[in-house]
């Protein structure tokens, strides 16, 4: 094993939003920082749905909204319940917005560039094989037969936590604790996108679909408009998907794209990109017992810090903010004499006090809703049947109550509906 002479204050593993932001903040505070990424460029291995909430990022990056690679501001939100060839949709439009669409690859790249501008050293195509320990403390990383040393290591390796598994800090991922995202990016001209979705330039759409879009597997589909492309994909519970699908998983997106309701949007597009990625479904179960060790802090998806609100994910802003807090925590630890376990405890404390942990606690039971089949099959069906009774008028017309009773006949009892409604309104 060859020890590299150059020593760093901090080594950050992974240049996703969490790692890139940690490196940015560390370098900005003057620490000698090394950011390592196994992909060809920062973010080249990342994938996400498509929308980022901006508020926390503005605290971290100056002039974020002017400089970051923002595609469109989300001003139109749609949620659809799909049954067969019909959909019932709620649409919310507003000129106010707190989120934007982008490519995660571009955003991670931008964040890593900010880190480099602040003096961090970014090396790509470097895969860390394991964390390096000296006298029981984390003191660097091992890449093939070389060791690079540092005072502190920040693990931002994302959800597939091979390094942490190796250390025995987390267990192997179980298919029932993660969901699988499968996505296509479809190229369309900006004007075409504007016309198809009723948007102005720079205006974006976020569209969540539930029901008959995932072959009945708990999960949902998403559509986000980028500047000159549309991201389209599904998220399904991995365990369920493995049990129920005997075909290649891409079929699910293919079917979504060709869905009678959606076909018209994409028929003239060209598929630019296809990708799949895991996502923590039940973050609480993925969170390591603690997020700090002697010489080590864990941030972002690796720490299970992702909020699933049911109709939206907050992964990027949470990941970035945890990286930011980790950097601040290191500054405090440094001031107190170094990155010992005792001194790094402050990271967990700061995180607990921030919106990150507060929100994660508040929404901790959302993932249990995901296990409720009825929400993904019965209710979309019920609502669409109800709508069809009210809207498809021939000779007779229905009154609401009449239509409702007929729609739910033999499907679900009134008591169940009330209980489920109550449960959803409490957990979401």
């Amino acid at each position: 094993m060859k020890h590299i002479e150059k020593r760093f204050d901090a080594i950050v593993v992974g240049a996703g939003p969490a790692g890139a932001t940690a490196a940015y903040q560390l370098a900005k505070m003057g620490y000698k920082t090394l950011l390592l990424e196994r992909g060809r460029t920062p973010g080249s291995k990342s994938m996400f749905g498509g929308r980022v909430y901006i508020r926390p990022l503005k605290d971290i990056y100056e002039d974020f909204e002017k400089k970051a690679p923002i595609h469109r501001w989300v001003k139109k939100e749609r949620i659809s319940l799909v049954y067969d060839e019909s959909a019932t949709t709620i649409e919310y439009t507003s000129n106010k917005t707190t989120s934007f669409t982008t490519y995660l690859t571009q955003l991670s790249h931008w964040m890593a560039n900010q880190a480099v501008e602040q003096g961090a050293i970014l090396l790509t195509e470097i895969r860390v094989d394991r964390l390096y320990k000296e006298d029981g403390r984390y003191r660097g990383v091992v890449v093939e037969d070389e060791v690079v040393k540092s005072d502190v290591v920040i693990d931002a390796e994302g959800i597939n936590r091979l390094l942490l598994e190796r250390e025995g800090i987390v267990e192997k991922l179980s298919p029932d604790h993660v969901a699988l995202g499968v996505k296509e990016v479809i190229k369309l001209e900006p004007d075409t996108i504007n016309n198809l979705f009723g948007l102005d330039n720079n205006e974006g759409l976020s569209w969540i679909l539930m029901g008959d879009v995932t072959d009945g597997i708990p999960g949902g589909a998403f559509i986000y408009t980028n500047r000159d492309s549309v991201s389209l994909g599904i998220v399904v519970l991995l365990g369920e998907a493995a049990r129920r699908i005997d075909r290649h998983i891409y079929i699910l997106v293919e079917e979504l794209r060709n869905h009678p309701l959606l076909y018209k949007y994409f028929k003239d597009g060209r598929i630019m990109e296809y990708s799949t990625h895991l996502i923590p479904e039940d973050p609480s179960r993925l969170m390591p017992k603690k997020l700090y060790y002697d010489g080590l802090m864990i941030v972002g998806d690796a720490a299970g810090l992702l909020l699933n609100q049911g109709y939206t994910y907050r992964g990027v802003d949470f990941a970035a903010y945890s990286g930011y807090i980790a950097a601040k925590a290191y500054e405090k630890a440094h001031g107190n004499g170094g990155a010992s376990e005792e001194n790094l405890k402050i990271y967990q404390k700061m995180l607990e006090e921030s919106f990150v942990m507060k929100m994660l606690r508040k929404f901790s039971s959302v993932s249990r809703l995901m296990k409720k089949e009825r929400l993904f099959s019965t209710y979309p069906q019920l609502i669409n049947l109800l709508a069809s009774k009210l809207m498809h008028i021939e000779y007779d017309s229905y009154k609401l109550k009449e239509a409702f009773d007929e729609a739910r006949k033999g499907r679900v009892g009134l008591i169940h509906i009330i209980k489920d409604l109550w449960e959803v309104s409490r957990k979401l």
Partner: protein
Amino acid sequence: MPLKIIVGIKWVPNTTSVNIDPKTGTLIREGIPSVVNPHDLTAVEMALKLKDRYGGTVTAISMAPPSALAGLEHVIGMGVDRGILASDRAFAGADTLATSYVLSKVIEKIGEYDLIIMGHETIDSSTAHIGAQVASWLRLPYVYYAVDIEYNEQDRSIIVRRMLENAYETYKVYLPAVVSIAMHTYEPRRVKVSNKLRAKTEDVIQVWTSKDLDIDINCAGLRGSPTVVSAIDFVPKVPRKNLVFKERDPKKAAKWLIDQLIQEGLLEL
């Protein structure tokens, strides 16, 4: 005496995603992420193997826009000692003649060298001109399609094996010389973290402009390029049928496929 090696690397758009502008017929290079021409990584690997075996230094050179610094960092990560980027607006729009002219001027300025190694060809233009032209400018012997090089220190020569369609030729060549390595001959090694750190933190890459080189500006770039692309003809599209068998039974699928092939007259039973 250890070997002083120079390798030429070209920074090319990743052609898996290159498009051709249907109106002008030119490559659309904009916005497409670039990479080091993959066959040049094979050349770099050959150079590093020679360095491992006989000692010496490897210098990578490239004529390209500034973004190619990332390519030089990559090969330094593999173990190349230093990089030189020839970059100047005056070099833009070059055909192969103007490219090889500037590259040979770069090599002249480096001065001390035994062996110049090039890739087989590039993935974006594939003329395979540059090796031969650089050798001509510098009046050096040139061997193309090389798969193996051995160095003889005593008389400062190399034994080069060159691949032909169904035979190998072996040449003895006195140094200095130019050699192009046949594609896919070697698997390029992975980058090392220590080497990459060196690329980022030590001054191992220099950028040379036309002012740094002893060149006639009329021979570089667009002005020095006599070649004109007069037309691009597209290979006509072969009309294809697209049939999909949708059931899952493999036996039926095989039967169906065979029937289709018979119908098309491609198979006789």
